[in-house]
């Protein structure tokens, strides 16, 4: 196992995060604040409580999820896309490092950034609302699993994309809509019955629901269903990455 190689990739990626520390932190802090001002203040007063939780507190887990999903996908994809784009990937391909170790370095760094940003959002949210975390361990489990899974999805997008537009397309056209429609800002019980059924096909629902359960003990779907679905996504991502490396698709001609 080439742990020093993994560390080299991981540190390289983290360095970019720290180099742009201000942007990295400022943008989630600002967007979280905006959400609270718009949703929390303007709408919350008319929403009342959902299952005994104030609306402002209710959306905290959804907000964290929204940022984690977009940050994971964008960091995961950018990390591997850049060396492909600039050609510096030659060095990684010619190094004595396995595909698994390459993934570990890139996805590990992307997931670390996501967890850091998730934590920053939680701290920012505290300024606006009181929230509680009933099951901190579960909260961390969901936080980490989701960050890893979606960083892995991002990594796959970064391998697949052959232009900057494609890097943008997936977060914009898939991740963001699914997050908004997956119950980040409402309970699906508030939807008409047909839409409730449709939403069950939205993978993000299970992530948000499980994550919210770890805060308030309330959820749209069973917590174990959430956990199993999250693990299924993680497993799917791993299988796709393994296939990509096995066939050399877009990496080794």
């Amino acid at each position: 196992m080439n742990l020093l190689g993994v560390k080299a990739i991981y540190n390289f990626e983290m360095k970019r995060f720290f180099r742009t520390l201000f942007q990295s932190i400022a943008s989630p802090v600002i967007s979280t604040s905006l959400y609270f001002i718009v949703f929390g203040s303007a709408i919350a007063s008319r929403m009342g409580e959902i299952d005994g939780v104030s609306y402002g507190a209710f959306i905290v887990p959804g907000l964290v999820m929204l940022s984690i999903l977009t940050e994971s996908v964008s960091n995961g994809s950018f990390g591997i896309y850049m060396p492909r784009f600039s050609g510096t990937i030659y060095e990684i391909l010619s190094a004595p490092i396995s595909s698994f170790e390459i993934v570990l370095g890139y996805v590990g760094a992307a997931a670390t950034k996501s967890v850091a940003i998730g934590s920053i959002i939680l701290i920012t949210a505290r300024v606006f609302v009181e929230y509680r975390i009933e099951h901190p361990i579960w909260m961390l489990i969901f936080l980490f699993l989701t960050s890893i899974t979606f960083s892995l999805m991002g990594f796959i997008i970064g391998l697949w994309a052959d232009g900057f537009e494609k890097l943008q397309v997936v977060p914009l056209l898939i991740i963001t809509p699914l997050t908004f429609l997956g119950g980040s800002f409402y309970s699906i019980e508030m939807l008409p019955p047909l839409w409730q059924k449709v939403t069950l096909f939205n993978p993000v629902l299970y992530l948000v629901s499980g994550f919210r359960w770890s805060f308030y003990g309330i959820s749209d779907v069973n917590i174990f269903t959430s956990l199993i679905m999250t693990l299924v996504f993680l497993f799917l991502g791993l299988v796709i990455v393994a296939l990509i490396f096995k066939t050399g698709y877009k990496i080794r001609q």
Partner: protein
Amino acid sequence: MQSNNEEIIQIKDLTKIYQDGLPALCNINLSIKKGEIFALLGPNGAGKSTLINIICGIVRPSAGEVYIGTSEIRKDYRMARSAIGLVPQELVTDMFERVIDTVNFSRGLFGKPQDPARTQKVLQDLSLWDKKDAKIITLSGGMKRRVMMAKALIHDPKILFLDEPTAGVDVNLRRDMWDMVRELQKTGVTIILTTHYIEEAQEMADRIGIINQGKLILVEEKNELMKKLGKKKLVLNLRTPLTKDISDLPLESSPDQLQLTYTYVMGNEEGISHIMRHLDERGIDYKDIRTEESSLEDIFVGIVGTKL
């Protein structure tokens, strides 16, 4: 130069067909000896980079095997790649990194613990030490190439691949490169380089392999090859048509008797002063003098019998 005839690389029946179907390499068989400098000579698109990239793990072979020592490049990729340093054809670097960081990154990537003394030595040998904190984007092309060389050498490879090390490099830097390569050879590193230029192969290599359209046409000791193929011409333009007898000199005259040509083997220039002295003695006056080297093209015609 070779200390012995131990083979450090063995290429067996190596074939590469890219997705678009044309074979880039057909059935290559080649052994590289430990400690030698081997030059792969061939025109654009011959398959030089493909061959190197397969050995280094960047391109997948379609068929065949490559052994680095006893390690097969796919089955035993960790051992094989640990022994190899690569400077690819294109100048690609992380533009916003500092020189020292990018070099240390390469060492880490190859699984070696950081060694500041070693980093300093490599950067100093490549005259990069005073640029160690510079961002790569601020360096000239020649210096970037050295940075890539430093990245390739920082993990102490036993084999170094240089894919067109002197493309776009000025005469001074080319000399430096050649000197560096020779120094490396003295430390026991085996070097494989590619080039379009016969002079470069002649200057550097112990052995030369000629590759064209994916086929390895010939592999020969440099001196043998030069004797056979490396012709040079000295051409003299005369002021007035030749009237004197020069049949004792190894010269050909043109039909209009205004041009004389002396053909000789590369690296064997002693005949020139002999000829010039005799021309002077006989009062044969010339207004212009130039030399021509056999181009890669000529050599190909010599070997393959057809033009490129």
